[in-house]
């Protein structure tokens, strides 16, 4: 039996939330320079909340984590990782669409 010593309240980060780029960099294991390059490439939105205080949307986390993993695990650079992420997302959308169409076709 696990004895719980602390009960914590969690805050759900929604679509409209922005996170400090430095925080999200730590979560995704990419450096700030790479993050800004990804923003320049259009992979993520960014805004400057104050001088040098960059923020990115919380919703960008999943794709940035993929970027971080690809860079670390496969040794690709920022541009390569960004391209790979976009292609992977396009591939998943197409596969999802194919599955959907196959389901429809299977009904007739």
């Amino acid at each position, binding site marked *: 039996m696990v004895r*719980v010593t602390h009960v914590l309240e969690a805050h759900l980060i929604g679509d409209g939330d922005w996170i400090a780029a430095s925080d999200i960099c730590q979560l995704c294991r990419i450096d700030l320079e790479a993050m800004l390059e990804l923003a320049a490439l259009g992979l993520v939105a960014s805004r400057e909340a104050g001088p040098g205080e960059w923020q990115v949307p919380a919703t960008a986390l999943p794709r940035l984590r993929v970027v971080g993993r690809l860079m670390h695990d496969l040794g690709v650079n920022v541009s390569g990782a960004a391209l790979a992420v976009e292609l992977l997302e396009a591939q998943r959308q197409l596969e999802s669409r194919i599955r959907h169409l196959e389901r429809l076709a299977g009904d007739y």
Partner: protein
Amino acid sequence: MEFRDYYKVLGVERGAAADAIKTAYRRLARKYHPDVSKEADAEARFKEVQEAYEVLKDPQKRAAYDELGSEWTSGQQFRPPPDWGSGFESAGGAPGGRRGRSAGRGGGASEQDFSEFFSSLFGGGSPFAGAERMHAGGRDHHARIDIELEEAFRGTTRTFELRHPEVKPDGTVEMRTRTVRVSIPAGVATGQLIRVAGQGEPGAGEGAAGDLYLETHILPHRLYQLDNRDVTLTFPVAPWEAALGAAVTVPTLGGEVEMHVPAGSQSGQKLRLRGRGLPGSPPGDEYVQLKVVLPAANSPEARAVYEDMRAKLNFDPRAAQR
């Protein structure tokens, strides 16, 4: 525990040069990386490959590993020799302390759980323990949590054991474990972040502690397909229900509801139950995709019905193709 032949995992000879090891790793990492691979066991294979590379790319670790000898084979029961690791800076499994880098921090290996074999030789392991796999990222901590769709709908709790280093009065560092329960609100979606303030790495001195970030991942469901906050249910109906209309009972995440199938419905047609998806602002919808299922013509009565339909209905299902 079972011995792991890291050379075999990477497919290289024991005397392979560092470049050959790196090339083998890159090739296999590309093949099995969970983000890009379609292999069924990609994640497990990738962890094996990454663990092998973690050892063989590091001259100290590799030398210590080689010290075990070449007689071992993968899967063979293994226990480190009592004096194993002495004299190697990176080795940490031998008596004298775990000096190896923690597997849960930084570097290319921090995304994985090392095997018991690796940990026994080189130390490491996640700074967390418990039911969920968690990773540390410096000041903030991060964990991916898998939850069922029903849990995402209703909200749920998860219990974690968080381990933090604590400096004792005598200056030594001790790992302290706290068991915490985190309430996860209803309406979380895949990839969504949950922040638990102050539960990351403790700050130095009077510095603020980091936060704990939980990234949710909703597991596939046997009935529903999830698309953001909307769910789609494939719903079988009888031909007469689709043709004549019917009142049917449909499962939703919040419980069963009555739904009217309009007369003249077709297979594949979607009916929307507004607000019956995941909670949110606005909440998602449930799409009920009708699937007309034909009764088998496996009895004289059933065959007679189909024969009657053929005789009396002027119906050409392929008329639109002509």
